[in-house]
């Protein structure tokens, strides 16, 4: 099969070169709307089994090119709508409009993250999606707040956990890869994620791959992949203003009071775009300020983002994008314990900080630029190349010391996509990443990663099977190389009662330069480097099933299992001074843990009144052996939204309730405050929409429940905010 696939790939690669000179192909245009005539943004229209697909813009318009003359079978789909099909006969150009019926229980129509190539149908590995409408409905202000609401996902102080993958290691790594429009964006030095790199207002969709994705994405995709798709540039002139303002609740107990005023937050985002069918661009600026809900918690954020597209030829499109964000935030390093502040006779003061760290702050700047070139040589073959540069810079100002770090991450990738026939897809590619860091705590180092991958998808009867592998070479400071092979195989099988999916794959994560070379002080201990760290590896398997129930519900359940080796965790070790023979306790990151992470991920989606009332219950059960730190055994999300039909305007109400059980273990237990409780957070929201204006009210943590996710760090108190959006 692989030989035939390879021959097919080569032939299809050569054919368009000859055919391309004869005709540029035709164009199919049209609109996608709902039954009330409202445009559906972000719907996908394509020709299944080919390279041809396009997303609709804000006006619901799409454009497919180049399309070979003849009868074309088109499929249109959008999240929350039943898909529709149409066949048009094309000479030079043709039009095809679609009306999609609301169907909230419909499966997500398109998978853009599990196979790199957008594909209709269900993927073999679980994928969660958040649409622009869901993000807007929740009225969140940052990307991580939006991602945190996805089923089976938990964000711990900025570190994302998908099915218990990452835990929490003070931002020194991430076992989840972040992509922005398909471009990797994990930091070059720490491997972490800057969730504030992009304004949430520019995000059109979030796709979350749950499980190892290293067979296509390489390092960091050990536990999953998050892909942020930014808004495309629509044709015509468009502008958008988003303003938000809110207030934090006071501490619920008088002995926790730390100020006499109410903490406020607010921000504004402006964006404008202009586009034709050939080219377009958008610029967005924004600023936010927050007084914070704790002592020494003020934050200021400024951002600039841009995106451009250029249809260079009917077959070739160039996309460029970039962003630059500047943050200055005070650092509430850890809450005050008895005697570390004016403790008012309390054992701990969760709203106050240790007075020895008063005045601490961090200045952070980060930005990226990326360019992607995609050429659709024919309906059977396309290739894509991209280059990217991510730069991060931080300075931590402390009373004890000032620390800084500057890191770059350069990436290139070339990949080819072939559809030898309607039932088969072949993807091959190569990727290179070069990172460097200059820092007083990480030193001056470089890290290179070279990877080559291939994957083939094949329809076999009713089943769809995908198999592939990636080979990565890693080198630090141009030293010896480490090779890692990451295979994956998976498939889906439609059954009478639903669809069965299964996958097995290997994931890995290269140690970050921060993990290898960090030299600083934490918790009163010296943290010493460990240049000999080896990559973490793990085999992940999943067996899932999705099925509709009585036309009013859909149940998706998946059993997952990861056998991880060489997990990197901080360890307290005793080091003997060879001169004085004194023994000192120090912290070092080491490959120490061999772990099993297994569990059940289940989602029940209910739509008793389609288009008006939907509810979701998502539950994740997690068992780890040995007990891993910061992994809650139970994670539950309940959400419901009700939106009665309106004549002149539309209003709706909704709520999210999130429960996470108390983690059984935390890192460095005995050296930090071990207080931790279960998470029980209720968010309540209301919205009123009267185009072009939207008004949203959000009461986050409405119960003002006091909790922490990581040691000595209080999570957000009740926050009431109002968001107004004007779109043109």
């Amino acid at each position, binding site marked *: 099969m692989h030989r035939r696939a390879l021959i097919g790939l080569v032939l299809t690669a050569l054919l368009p070169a000859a055919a391309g000179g004869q005709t540029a192909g035709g164009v199919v245009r049209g609109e996608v709307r709902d039954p009330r005539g409202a445009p559906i943004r972000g719907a996908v229209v394509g020709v299944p089994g080919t390279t041809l697909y396009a997303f609709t813009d804000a006006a619901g318009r799409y454009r497919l090119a180049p399309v070979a003359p003849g009868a074309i079978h088109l499929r249109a789909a959008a999240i929350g709508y039943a898909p529709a099909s149409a066949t048009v006969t094309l000479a030079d150009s043709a039009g095809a409009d679609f009306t999609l019926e609301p169907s909230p229980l419909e499966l997500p129509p398109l998978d853009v993250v599990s196979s790199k190539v957008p594909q209709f149908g269900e993927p073999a590995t679980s994928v969660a999606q958040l649409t622009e409408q869901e993000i807007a409905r929740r009225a969140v202000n940052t990307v991580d707040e939006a991602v945190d609401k996805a089923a089976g996902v938990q964000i711990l102080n900025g570190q994302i956990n998908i099915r218990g993958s990452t835990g929490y290691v003070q931002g020194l790594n991430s076992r989840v890869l972040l992509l922005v429009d398909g471009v990797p964006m994990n930091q070059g030095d720490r491997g972490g994620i800057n969730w504030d790199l992009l304004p949430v207002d520019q995000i059109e969709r979030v796709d979350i791959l749950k499980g190892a994705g290293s067979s296509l994405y390489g390092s960091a995709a050990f536990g999953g992949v998050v892909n942020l798709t930014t808004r495309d540039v629509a044709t015509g002139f468009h502008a958008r203003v988003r303003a938000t303002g809110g207030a934090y609740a006071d501490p619920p107990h008088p002995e*926790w009071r730390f100020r006499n005023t109410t903490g406020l937050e607010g921000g504004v985002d402006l964006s404008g775009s202009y586009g034709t069918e050939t080219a377009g661009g958008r610029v967005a600026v924004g600023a936010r300020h927050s007084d914070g809900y704790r002592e020494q918690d003020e934050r200021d954020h400024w951002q600039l983002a841009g995106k451009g597209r250029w249809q260079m030829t009917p077959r070739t499109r160039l996309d460029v994008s970039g962003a630059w964000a500047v943050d200055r935030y005070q650092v509430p390093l850890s809450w005050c314990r*008895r005697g570390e502040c004016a*403790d008012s006779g*309390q*054992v701990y003061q969760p709203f106050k900080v240790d007075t020895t760290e008063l005045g601490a702050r961090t200045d952070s700047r980060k930005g990226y630029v990326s360019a992607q070139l995609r050429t659709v040589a024919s309906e059977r073959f396309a290739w894509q190349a991209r280059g990217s540069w991510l730069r991060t810079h931080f300075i931590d100002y402390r009373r004890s010391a000032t620390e800084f770090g500057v890191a770059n991450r350069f990436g290139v990738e070339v990949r080819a996509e072939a559809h030898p026939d309607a039932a088969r897809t072949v993807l091959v590619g190569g990727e290179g990443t070069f990172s460097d860091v200059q820092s007083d705590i990480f030193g001056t180092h470089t890290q290179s990663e070279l990877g080559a991958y291939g994957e083939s998808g094949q329809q076999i009867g009713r089943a769809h099977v995908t198999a592939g592998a990636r080979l990565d070479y890693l080198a630090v400071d141009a030293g010896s190389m480490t090779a890692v092979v990451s295979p994956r195989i998976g498939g889906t099988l439609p059954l009478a009662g639903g669809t069965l999916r299964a996958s097995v794959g290997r994931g890995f994560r290269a140690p970050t330069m921060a993990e290898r070379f960090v030299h600083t002080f934490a918790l009163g201990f010296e943290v010493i480097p460990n240049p000999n760290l080896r990559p973490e590896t793990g085999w992940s398997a999943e067996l899932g099933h999705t099925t509709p129930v009585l036309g009013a519900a859909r149940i998706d359940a998946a059993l997952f299992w990861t056998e991880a080796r060489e997990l990197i965790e901080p360890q307290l070790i005793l080091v003997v001074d060879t001169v004085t023979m004194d023994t000192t306790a120090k912290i070092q990151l080491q490959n120490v843990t061999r772990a099993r992470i297994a569990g059940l991920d289940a989602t029940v989606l209910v739509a008793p009144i389609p288009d008006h009332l939907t*509810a979701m219950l998502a539950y994740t059960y997690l068992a780890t052996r040995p007990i891993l730190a910061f992994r809650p055994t139970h994670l539950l999300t309940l959400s419901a939204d009700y939106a009665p039909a309106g004549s002149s305007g539309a209003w709706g109400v909704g709520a999210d309730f999130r429960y996470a059980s108390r983690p059984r273990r935390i890192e460095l237990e005995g050296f930090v405050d071990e*207080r931790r409780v279960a998470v*029980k957070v209720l968010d309540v929201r209301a919205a009123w929409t009267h185009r072009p204006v939207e008004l949203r009210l959000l009461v986050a943590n409405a119960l003002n*429940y006091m909790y922490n996710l990581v040691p000595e760090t209080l999570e957000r108190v009740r926050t009431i905010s109002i968001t107004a959006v004007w779109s043109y």
Partner: protein
Amino acid sequence: MSLRPAAVLVAALAAALACDAGLEPEPVCARGLVGVCGTAHYTGTPPAETEAVFVVAFHTYPQSCADLLALPPNFQPFPPPPLPRPYADSAAYSVPLTAGRYEWFVAVWKKPGTPTFTTNDTSLFRVAGQYPGVVTVPAGGAISGIDIVVAFDSLRPVTDFVTCTAAR
């Protein structure tokens, strides 16, 4: 599942899960205590004849043995309950005290013997440590953070602090 049972189920589940308040204030002093609490830090080795160490507080600094013997009512019967054992490292303690200002807050070491409430008692007791400041107990409440160092290697007779005519 019809809408009503589902809504009731969801509401009941949410209410059950949300019924506690998460992190709560945790006073250093025990709830309901009216008095003083803190940590006793022990240094040195307790003498072999140690019977107990306890805390005594005086509204004003004693000028004479008579002042010493005029203990506030909090310390009746005398001696008061001892500080927590073992006398090593440190231990949290609390002392019930009526509201007011206490100028001398002192840790007292005692060897075996029955107090007679005369100047002869000075042979039974030694000053093991003092709080370096005035302690004010709020009305109906407690003050925390009154940490005191109990130094077994430098026990001092009370006659170092007040004038008495008693056997050492």
